């Protein structure tokens, strides 16, 4: 799958629920800052569509980098088809 494809933020949150239990997120002025087990991904895009939380789409390249940062790549692939 191309890194230029997208997935809904809602599916990213569901993937994190499955692969990074206990993860947290805060919405900053520019991004979502996602944390888990002492690791931080502070630059997740809020998405291109709408301001409603979770309504946006995130590019696969960002999701892949997030999964790498948290060391959950294999689990993330099982829960998000766009990563395969």
């Amino acid at each position, binding site marked *: 799958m191309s*890194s230029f494809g997208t997935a809904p933020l809602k599916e990213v949150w569901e993937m994190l629920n499955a692969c990074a239990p206990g993860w947290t997120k805060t919405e*900053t*002025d*520019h991004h979502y800052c996602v944390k888990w087990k002492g690791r*931080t991904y*502070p630059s997740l895009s809020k998405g291109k569509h709408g301001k409603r939380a979770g309504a946006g789409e995130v590019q696969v*390249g*960002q999701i892949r*980098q997030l999964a*790498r940062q948290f060391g959950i790549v294999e689990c993330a692939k099982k829960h998000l088809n766009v990563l395969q």
Partner: protein
Amino acid sequence: MEQYPLLFSFSDKVAGKGYLAAFTAHGAALAGKEEEGWWVYGVKPGGLAESGTTLPEAYVEFRKSLLKVLFDLAAEAPDFYAFRRAATEFFNEVNEPTRAEWEAARALVRQGKLGLEGIRREPAESPRRIEIKELQTIALTPEDNRLEDEELGVAA
């Protein structure tokens, strides 16, 4: 996918609560070329990735994203020291899987099998770090005025 190991440096300023911070970032990133365009994935700092139709465009987006993270940290930090601590922690968090791919690409550059036209080679041993200092208004001088100072090189 073609991958290239990058070293980058740039300087800028961040306004926080009652202070102005100047920083110079010396980081590492992995550039990946796909059919639709380019991605730049952070190695150090590892917590960001951005894309563009060309490598320069992707790098500009990457740099903007890094700067926005620093803006967010400045908005949360109560003072300069808290900002410097948070920014340094963010910058020093290495993305290990991306670093492994960066090292593999760097080996190809060293073997002469990989290069980027128009981008000079830079020794990968040069330390990757962020330097942050507080600029107080009374200490500002014309020497503090500078155009964007940045460098981009292929790690060798």
